[in-house]
């Protein structure tokens, strides 16, 4: 399983804070983005950062591993 997390403004648009998708061999980050982005286009409009296992990732070709935690995040507004 891949664990997907949403926070703040993105969670509000997806209308959930967390979901899971089944891991399949050869899966890449872009596969998850394409699949979730098609289901929740309004939420992905404001996604500015993607993290895999709590570290920011820019390369959408990143191969995933079973058990990975992915977060799709809007621009930060802390501080």
């Amino acid at each position: 399983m891949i664990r997907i997390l949403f926070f703040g403004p993105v969670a509000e648009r997806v209308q959930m804070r967390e979901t899971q998708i089944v891991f399949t061999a050869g899966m890449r980050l872009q596969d998850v983005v394409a699949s979730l982005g098609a289901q929740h286009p309004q939420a992905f409009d404001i996604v500015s950062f993607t993290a895999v296992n709590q570290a920011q990732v820019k390369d959408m070709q990143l191969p995933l591993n079973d058990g990975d935690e992915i977060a799709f995040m809007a621009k930060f507004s802390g501080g």
Partner: protein
Amino acid sequence: MTNPVRIQQEDFSQDAEIAALKAVSKRIGGIATFLGCARDFSEGRDVSEIGFEAYGSMALAEMNKLRSEAIARFSLLEARIVHRVTNVRAGDNIVFIAAAAEHRAAAFDACRWIIDELKQRVPIWKKETTPQGESWVTQHP
């Protein structure tokens, strides 16, 4: 002694943070701090409450990285970063940064750098409650 990097609901005390900072070294000549507070006014609208949400594990990891980078980059003797994640009202504390160095220039430079970087790098989001309803403070990408 509390951890020098924390995300917490409860308020913090500057006196306690400074005492913990000073306990690390007798070489400290200057401590620059930044305290971010909730305002009752933002971009032309009255704000009655501000709520925060964090990606806790990543936020804490990024804040720890920020502290280590600042200590190395500005030759600090110590630094502390505390961010509240809760609902706050006008005047309430949100974030506290303290940078201690032998001389004041490094302390000021580091403190400013940490808060600037924190806003860019730490996954925390802010929602403002105004007479027009609630809205997340976020820019489109």
